[in-house]
């Protein structure tokens, strides 16, 4: 009889016990062929789904053609709970790599050579980052609270001295500011109003660098998202629509003429400007869209820049980048948001060269010179 009772004890021996949690070991995946230019590689920031703390950093080295997954923990083994929760933007400025970690309420500042941590800037609910003249400008949802008839909260742009990593000024903008770009001497901020469903925001804030105060709110369309400034003084703004009657769109605002000069009815989840061409990717209710626009003429150059037809294999087109020298195109697939995504590399002519698995929700790419 007692034999039966010892069975579970035996199972205990067979079943695995706990072991120490080991810091993540980066995985090297040989991917593609070396591309030798002045661009040494790129970082990929994987957002990770909210609450999972799975925001991770990958690196692709053009010299060795190695894709290395999850490098942050190995580069910074003493940081508790690693990079954080939900990465929202990634840029290199000078010798430093800046990762905007939305739900960890911080900008992680790293050495651009090896992703070693330099410091952090605490900004609650931070979203996007842009640089100019030794300063970083970061949008945040978490501005002052207003108790009018309804509870509401404006967002702001924080100005950070990149030498000291201190916040030196703040500029209040509209509700839930997302994308930010610099055109001439003005910052343009897309106010989404995403927390105010169904009363979305519809304005673009203009902030002259000289005063760092909002000079005007330019009404465009509801639920604005990303902003890209081109060399013609135009500001390209994507809008998500409201998922009911208002469809997503892409608006071209001419900052010199101070009016909207073109509107495209397009779903845009990411944009990238490359030599006067604006590449856009998006997921419509039906098919994916991969559209290139000539910014000089504001016309569609190519209505499917993934020419080999593999674009339909992508479940959720999410990140977009174009190699500054070769013109190779990088598009990521966020798939289910919960599982690892994929990064696909295409020639400038739109045929797929390679694919590699990434972290969860591959979202933001920064090239390293």
């Amino acid at each position: 009889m007692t034999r039966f009772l010892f069975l579970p004890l035996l199972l205990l021996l067979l079943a695995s016990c706990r072991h120490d949690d080991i810091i993540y070991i980066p995985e090297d995946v040989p991917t593609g062929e070396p591309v030798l230019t002045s661009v040494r590689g790129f970082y990929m920031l994987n957002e990770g789904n909210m609450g999972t703390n799975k925001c991770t950093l990958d690196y692709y080295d053009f010299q060795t053609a190695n894709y290395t997954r999850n490098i942050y923990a190995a580069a910074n083994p003493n940081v508790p709970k690693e990079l954080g929760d939900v990465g929202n933007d990634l840029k290199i400025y000078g010798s430093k790599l800046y990762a905007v970690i939305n739900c960890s309420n911080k900008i992680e500042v790293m050495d651009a050579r090896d992703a070693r941590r330099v410091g952090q800037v605490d900004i609650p609910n931070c979203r996007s980052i842009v640089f100019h003249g030794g300063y970083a400008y970061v949008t945040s949802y978490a501005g002052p609270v207003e108790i009018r008839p309804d509870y509401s909260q404006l967002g702001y742009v924080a100005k950070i001295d990149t030498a000291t990593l201190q916040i030196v000024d703040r500029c209040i903008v509209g509700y839930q500011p997302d994308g930010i770009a610099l055109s001439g001497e003005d910052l343009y901020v897309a106010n989404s109003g995403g927390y105010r469903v169904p009363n979305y925001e519809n304005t673009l804030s203009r902030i002259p660098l000289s005063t760092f105060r909002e000079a005007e709110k330019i009404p465009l369309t509801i639920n604005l998202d990303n902003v890209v400034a081109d060399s013609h003084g135009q500001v390209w703004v994507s809008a998500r629509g409201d998922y009911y009657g208002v469809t997503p769109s892409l608006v071209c605002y001419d900052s010199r003429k101070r009016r909207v000069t073109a509107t495209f009815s397009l779903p845009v989840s990411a944009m990238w400007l490359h030599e006067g061409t604006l590449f856009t990717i998006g997921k419509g209710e039906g098919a994916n869209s991969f559209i290139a626009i000539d910014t000089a003429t504001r016309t569609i150059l190519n209505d499917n820049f993934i020419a080999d037809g593999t674009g339909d294999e992508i479940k959720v087109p999410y990140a977009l980048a174009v190699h500054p020298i070769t013109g190779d195109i990088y598009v990521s697939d966020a798939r289910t948001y919960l599982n690892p995504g994929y990064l696909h590399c295409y020639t400038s002519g739109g045929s797929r060269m390679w694919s590699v698995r990434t972290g969860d929700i591959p979202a933001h790419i920064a090239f390293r010179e």
Partner: protein
Amino acid sequence: MKRILSLLMVCLCCLPILAQQVDSLPEVEVTALRTDAGVIAPQELSGARLQGLAAHSVADALRYFSGVQIKDYGGVGGIKTVDLRSMGSQHTGVFYDGLQLGNAQNGQIDLGRYSLDNIESIRLYAGQKSSLLQPARDYASGASIYIRSLEPRFAEGSRVAGSAVVRTGSFGLINPSLRVDYRLTDSISLTASAEYTYANGRYKFRYRKMFSDGTLAWDTTATRRNGQIHALRAELGAYGHLRRGKWQAKAYFYDSSRGIPGAIVNNVWKNSQRQWDRNFFLQGSLELRPTGRYRFVASAKYAHDYMRYLNPDTTLLYIDNTFRQQEIYLTTTHLLSILPGWEASLAVDWQYNTLSSNMAAFLYPRRHTLQGALATSVSFGGFRGQASLLLTEAFDNFLTSPMAPEQGRSTRHVDRLSPAIFLSWRPSAPDGLEVHGFAKNIYRLPTFNDLYYTDIGNASLKPENLSQYDLGASWQLLPSTTCVTALQLTVDGYYNHVKDKIIAVPRGTGQYRWMMTNIGKVHIWGLEAAAEASLAPLSELNLHLRATYTLQDARDYSDPADNADAAGTYRGQIAYIPRHSFSINGDADWRAFSLNYSFIYVGERWDNSSNIPENYVQPWYTHDLSLTYRLPLRRHRASATLEINNLLNQQYEVIRNYPMPGRNFRLILRFDL
């Protein structure tokens, strides 16, 4: 379908008249498990065994059942939901004193809220309770948990009984409860009980990572905050016996305010979200046996649930949402004994649910659910069987356009048939052996959140479909040796198949846009074993041992294209289901002392069906110990219990980023009138 419906309605009205007067059959004992509990006996914990467990809530006690996984977010106030046999927690129905606890909003019952204070027994059935005298809703879940509250019991010649309990210990716990039973007449007794729980919910937790050579990378200890809870539970019950039946009525009230501790992520070590809940229900049932051949039960219930969620953190989205649910439920069941050993029953239920909220763009859904169940059971020789057929008709209506309420309401209708068959056979030899099995197909209606939640809901969802197959055996021995007084072994193998599983998928442009879809598919193979033994090795020393083991192979077949490498989800073990888990529990009673030891092991898991190291979650196992001393009083009973839980202070997580408490203590003082 309409015809079947009207037929059911006619039956509902006429059956009492159709019943014939015949000689009465022998009375069925309520305590006789095999007849009352169905063809296949449930797993059960009751009485002193239940109270002896180091368990605060019903969820804690269910960890000692095989096949059960608890999703536990940690602490006294943390949410605890139950998943049986990897079907998904919404396939498990929870019944309190015979009637189901509903949550039309999200289909989840937080069993962490039901304390063991006032509980007589907990029974767990895979498939369904295969008895006949039960509502149609009892056929409508993939698994069922029956929680029975204590019925009044009186000492000989006494009209009043009662008990007072105080529990205190770690997490700042203060938990007094009081219960009074009163015998109004010989056939009617009343009971009232109340319980208050306060805990500050604070506990230390530690995260640590090492280099692969075993040296320390980082090590951090912090205090879990925002886990405080205030909760009040009050219940009134009335129980009556009639010449040919019995009745009971119950009022239940629960009011709580709690912090939601939230996920621990980089740079965020505390959260400030709060939740308030107020649940009220009133229920009554009447069981009569007008003739020997015919029995019926009629029950009614009204429930009102209020929930407020507040996120006051202005760095995040400020949210202050309230939700109100109402449920009206009427059911009647008619059981006819056709021949000795052959019975048939018909159950008809009507249920009405509403949900309202102050959320923007809310659709204000309402649902009428009509359910009818036809069942029959036969028993001859050692053979017993039950077959049932459940018809579900659900009629929803909701605002056509949340922006323009003047456009009126849209409707949605689903109907489904669910068959089930349960068999058991006791061969003449060896004595005490029983072989049993069942097959069942059941649907889970999409919840109001699945269908109508602002933005993510999808009104075109189909019900989730679950098929279950089970084959098992149990062997009950009453050994002749004086040392081992009872021994029981149970083994079950099963296969479950979930299709049209409701899961959220991304949609539309950018950011996190989700929509509920029917694309999930899961195949589950499992093995469960339980052994229970009672021993009396020495005079005055009684031992009771119980062990369970569960093996689950639950794989995600949703996306055949996602099979690239180890990271592919196709055929990956689904989230938070361990391959192996087991529990061991032992009681020793000696004179005025009782010692209870329990051990729970939950094996390695992944938090996602992509089974890669990043998604790996470590196994956990805890040792709990409790010692009770019964005071030698002459007229009353009193006892003191000291519990030490998680004796070895293991730092573990059940859900990623939700650290569980380390070693903790509880002192329980009990006095029975």
